[in-house]
């Protein structure tokens, strides 16, 4: 059966193509799955990395999430988007990993990209006009990650998905399989906690 022609919509990045790729991967086409991995690897890796603050763990968990997703493709009913379903697998795997690793946290942080030094918000944070002037970017990064690790996994996840990755409350609710009210309350509580942990770096200039 021939695949329907993919209509290119500038607003949404070829959803039909994704369906075709999922169908191909479900038939065992590793080429199609390779394309799906390329499409979502950065977001999946980033979510896991920000949850674990460890590059090696994020690498392992991201690979295992994609492998698990490929093996579970037959159970994918299409009730949600492939992206949401994949996210759910990665998030569950990460939370299980973090529960096992409890109190054995070891940070292995990635370097900041070149653009960080030119980000106006970050420049303001380390500018000598603010009380945070003594803190370099690397120190801020370490303090921020340490504060994130103090949050419980569900609270950390909401902060990562919303404030770091920019997902909407609705998307987060679908990924976490809870209602939007829960997402909002978790986000509020998590931000309050973080403000307490990072008060030295958040004092009004």
């Amino acid at each position, binding site marked *: 059966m021939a695949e329907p022609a993919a209509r290119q919509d500038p607003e949404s990045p070829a959803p039909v193509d994704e369906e075709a790729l999922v169908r191909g991967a479900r038939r065992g086409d*590793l080429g199609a*799955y*390779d394309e799906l*991995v*390329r499409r979502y*690897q*950065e977001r999946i*890796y980033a979510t896991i*990395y*920000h949850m674990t603050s460890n*590059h090696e763990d*994020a*690498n392992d968990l*991201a*690979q*295992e999430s*994609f*492998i*698990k997703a*490929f*093996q579970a493709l037959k159970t994918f009913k299409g009730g949600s988007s492939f992206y949401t379903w994949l996210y759910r697998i990665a998030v569950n795997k990460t939370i299980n990993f973090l*529960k*096992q690793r*409890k109190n054995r946290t070891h940070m292995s*942080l*990635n*370097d*900041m*990209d070149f*653009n*960080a030094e030119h*980000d106006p*918000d*970050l420049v*303001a*944070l380390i500018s000598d006009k603010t009380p945070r002037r003594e803190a370099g*970017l690397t120190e*801020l*990064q370490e303090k*921020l*990650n340490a504060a*994130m690790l103090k949050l419980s996994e569900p609270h950390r996840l909401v*902060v*990562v998905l919303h*404030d*770091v990755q920019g997902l909407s409350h609705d998307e987060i609710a679908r990924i976490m399989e809870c209602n939007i009210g829960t997402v*909002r309350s978790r986000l*509020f509580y998590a*931000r309050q906690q*973080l*403000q307490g942990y*990072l008060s030295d*770096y*958040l004092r*009004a200039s």
Partner: protein
Amino acid sequence: MNESENDFEPLRRLLAIKRHEIPPLGYFNNFPGQVVARLRAGDTGAPEGITAPSWLLKFFRAFEAKPAYVSSFACSLCLLLLFGIVYAERPDATEKPSLFTAFVAPSAALVDAKSADYASAQTTGLMINTNPVLSLQPVAALFNQQNPLAQVQAMNVNLQSLGN
């Protein structure tokens, strides 16, 4: 909600640092290849070298998650072993009828009957043992109990020396 969003604005700007944390250069070029290679190799995504049934995996995972389980499990094993040793060394433990003693009881009764014959033989000075079963009975006597069979064997030796 907007008010609370504004309250957290400095925090959100600080959290923006995390968007600049990126993996080593070229990492995402190799990543799909690694995933596909693992899929081709038949990797299940589970830790390597473990092919135990799922209930056993769950059992071991419970140990990984909670080290307290490991210590309590080890303690209970040690207690069980200790109880076994203490119970085995109790003097009255051997007197209670058990499967082993019930199994050997008939031959023990036979030995008792024979030892009565030996006692009478002591008076006459004549005793001939032609029963091969007796020689197969256990000869060890634990806990300082007198073993009638040992007496029988001793008497046999005496009679043989008398005969010579």
